[in-house]
């Protein structure tokens, strides 16, 4: 099987400081990969390099495009990369304010990606927006409200709807449940899991929350000081960690 995403020896430095170094990974269709580590471990740098938000210094990011098969995303032209970013890729930010247009209605936020790829029928755009709001459990009556009138959890669900409306194949998520109440987190995780399964999505989820990856991720990558120090099946890494740092990380979680 061709991997959907094939990352080879990716590296990024900030001057003399290592952001991430020599990261290689393969993501197959339908797989969810969790990346865990503490603040400064390089997990966000890695995610931003993969998603094209940051130019890495070394390495290749090969994506299996629909039209032309595997292509190195880093050597694509800007228009190609943007097109990828609003069709096959999606990026869910930790802070919904970074991923939403706060002055545009919920429906407009969801519809933007459709219009960006050429949708020009208002009725159809609106119908799709309504459908997607329902899928993320936002009442149709709220379609013309601005996100600023929404709660944090609703904003995050709206961001997910906005991202998934074009049927992407790969979703990057940066601490998708960070900053939310526990009960809201649970609802969001359930929602993401359901969408991932029904749409056959592949996802890379960066988080410091081990409970989140246990529920969402098939596989786990543990990062420390910019390096990948352990990878494996999520439950295996969490239940039988091998690296000293992973053992420390797992044993540091408060049990409820």
């Amino acid at each position, binding site marked *: 099987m061709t991997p959907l995403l094939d990352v080879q020896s990716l590296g990024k430095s900030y001057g003399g400081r290592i952001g991430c170094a020599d990261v290689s990974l393969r993501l197959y269709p339908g797989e969810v990969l969790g990346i865990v580590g503490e603040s400064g471990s390089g997990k966000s740098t890695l995610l931003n390099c993969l998603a094209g938000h940051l130019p890495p210094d070394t390495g290749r990011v090969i994506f299996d495009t629909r039209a032309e098969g595997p292509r190195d995303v880093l050597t694509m032209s800007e228009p190609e990369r943007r097109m990828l970013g609003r069709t096959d890729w999606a990026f869910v930010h930790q802070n919904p304010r970074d991923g939403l247009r706060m002055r545009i209605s919920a429906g407009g936020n969801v519809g933007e990606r459709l219009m960006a790829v050429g949708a020009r029928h208002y009725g159809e755009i609106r119908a799709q927006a309504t459908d997607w709001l329902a899928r993320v459990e936002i009442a149709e009556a709220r379609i013309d409200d601005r996100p600023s009138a929404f709660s944090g959890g609703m904003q995050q669900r709206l961001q997910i709807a906005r991202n998934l409306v074009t049927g992407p194949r790969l979703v990057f998520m940066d601490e998708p449940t960070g900053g939310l109440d526990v009960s809201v987190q649970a609802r969001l995780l359930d929602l993401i899991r359901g969408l991932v399964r029904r749409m056959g999505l592949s996802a890379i989820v960066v988080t410091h929350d081990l409970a989140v990856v246990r529920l969402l991720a098939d596989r786990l990558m543990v990062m420390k000081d910019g390096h990948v120090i352990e990878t494996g099946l999520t439950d295996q890494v969490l239940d039988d960690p*091998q690296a000293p740092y992973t053992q420390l990380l797992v044993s540091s979680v408060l049990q409820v």
Partner: protein
Amino acid sequence: MIPMIHVENLAKNFTLHNQGGASIPVIAGAGFSVAPGECVALTGESGAGKSTVMRILYGNYLAQGGSVRIGTIDITKAEPREILALRRETLGYVSQFLRVVPRVPTLEVVAEPLLALGRPEEEAFDRARDLLTRLRIPERLWTLSPTTFSGGEQQRVNIARGFAHAYPALLLDEPTASLDATNRETVLTLIEEAKAGGAAIVGIFHDLEARARVADREIDVAVFTPKLA
């Protein structure tokens, strides 16, 4: 007959890096086979390593040596995605504890293994309803998340989920613990049905009667425990 599960020369150590790097050998030289339709019970004192063996068989623990072949896959050397596919299609595991996403309705929890295989929703939910009925989970609870259920109810939901798909290889970790007589009988019947359906089963049964009824053989894991120097 070709065994469904074949364990050879298995070894497992725990290295505790944060406790002075102590390495504790827990299993060495373990080997056994389970044929389709056969149920093998692991026995031994508490702490002898029964659960550790089960977890290695499921790919939850890493082995330090030897091989564990499930069907055609050596789980000790397989890629994560191969193990995931194996768990989806071939290898089931019923543990004592339910671990699910909060808020997901019970019916969906039970149907999930079939949905993950891409079976039609109708078939998956029919099977889930059937199992929940047999295990006497009241219908009014089906739309609720099992996270709020009693221990016994949670265990039965877990069993229903474990038996939703007819896995060719099945691992059972104390499936009848803390069940009343009626539900225990249902679970034993489910195990017998799985055996009749050709499943190779490895189980841990503290319930001696249950063990005697469903297990064809017993393996004392004490023989796999390394002799401490």
